[in-house]
């Protein structure tokens, strides 16, 4: 699997876990305001999971930029 595809899969898995969904239940355009289960607690779990996966705290600007599945994928790509 190429790195981009791997990042996309990981991003889907991290977000699905935070939302308590199966990966195949997660829509590709998942985003704050569009995805019903993406609430405050899910968002907190998502950010903590991202920090754990990356092995470092997210800086504030990066944390603020996470609003969609695409943003998570982009973060993983930029963190390689």
């Amino acid at each position, binding site marked *: 699997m190429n790195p981009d595809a791997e990042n996309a899969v990981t991003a889907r898995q991290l977000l699905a876990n935070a939302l308590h969904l199966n990966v195949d239940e997660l829509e590709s355009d998942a985003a*704050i305001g569009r995805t019903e289960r993406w*609430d*405050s*607690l899910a968002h907190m779990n998502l950010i903590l999971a991202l920090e754990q996966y990356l092995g470092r705290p997210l800086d*504030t*600007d990066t944390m603020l930029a996470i609003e969609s599945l695409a943003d998570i994928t982009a973060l993983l790509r930029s963190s390689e």
Partner: protein
Amino acid sequence: MSQWKPGQILQLETENYRLRSLTAADATDTYVSWWNDAEVQDGLGQKPRHWGRREALRHIGNFDNRQRFHLGIFPGEEALPIGFIAIFLESAGCAKTNTVIGNKAYWGRRVVLEVRARVLRFLFEDLRVFKVHGQVDGRNFASVFNYKAQGFTCEGVLRQHAVGPDGNRRDLLNFGLLREEWIAAQDQ
């Protein structure tokens, strides 16, 4: 429109909650416990306060229902609140709010979004406030979510401006919502 007059108890309602100015009678063990709970206070970037009823009474007494409001959040007809939302009217038509959900069973249940939406309507429509703003600990990701989901803009980051309960320095984030932005969102 609310029937509230300055100095009177303020009462507002949402679909699932009642908001009412807290009084001395509301300084219960439950209310006091929120100020001493590590998880609840961490959301405020604070350590547990080690408060007793005296400190709680003093705090509630700081709110005059004119410029400063301390509204309990009551689910349905329940007598005990699950948290509170504080409102501070400031100069130049601005108001600051902060919200605490002390009952953890209600975390992640969109309480903040529901009750703050009603408070925003009170502030923008009844009091004709120009801008509502709030400040949040940069590690309080749930609160950051709520501000963004409600259309607030992060207007600035005060870098390493505070010390968190863990002893590490933390950013503080200022979020703001203008009346014109709130009106535009209502029209959508």
